């Protein structure tokens, strides 16, 4: 059985639901959320980079709340 389809709106994801709590990654997800000190959950998270042991774990996160723009960006 594949992963359940996650129905989301842009506003928030419910991380208390069964999908997030039962996934093997739920512990890591909770750690990330604590690291970020944000009450808002990401819309999407991707793992990338080498993902080797002893390497840092690269995680790409998209939010619908303001994120600092360090670099060149479109003036909205």
């Amino acid at each position: 059985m594949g992963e359940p389809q996650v129905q989301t709106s842009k506003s928030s994801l419910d991380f208390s639901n069964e999908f997030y709590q039962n996934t093997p990654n739920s512990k890591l997800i909770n750690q990330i959320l604590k690291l970020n000190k944000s009450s808002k959950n990401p819309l999407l998270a991707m793992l990338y980079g080498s993902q080797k042991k002893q390497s840092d774990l690269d995680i790409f996160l998209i939010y619908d709340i303001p994120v600092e723009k360090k670099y060149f960006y479109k003036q909205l």
Partner: protein
Amino acid sequence: MIFLLKKNIFINNYDLNQIEINNFYFKLFNRDIEYTEPLLTGNYFFGDKKILKQSKDFLQNKNPEKEIYDYLGKRSIETFLQAENFYSSGKNDLFNKLAISGESLSSVKDKIFKNNFNFDSEIINKSLSILTYSLSYLASIKRYQNGERTITINQILNNPINDIEKQFFSLRDYFKSCSKGEKKLSFNKIDTYFNETKFLLRRNI
């Protein structure tokens, strides 16, 4: 009060790269490799799969617009300047360490201004990492102009097709080896990488 998330968080072996969704769509439209790389090479972790699917569909099925070359060119210059800043900070940090450790003026002078000093520096490694971004933006312009729709770091590393990509390959190999402690940094080598990258930027943008 508006809560502003940091763009990057690096803690406990987690390297978080974060973006607000409208800014993400802007970066996606411009095929910014910092953001296309996780989408094209990463593994879904959690969240809305629709965003991932739509984003990948866009990259794989739409031709790049011509205006992205302006964006990517500016990003390659911007990251070059950021790399220079980090390099300068790293040299200052190194000087401070040498001076504080009680080295003689003559020794400090030789180490900072002569090219045979080998050393480790996390800040200068970071500057070289950023310099690879400058080259990757430049490389991606050329590849998009040649009709490619999706570009990943591994595609460039596995088959460097021009001077820009060969420089990217060499620089990445150098700074990765230095980061792992397999090689030492040297001003001579670093200055050469900066000069060659500046030459490539001037010639190709």
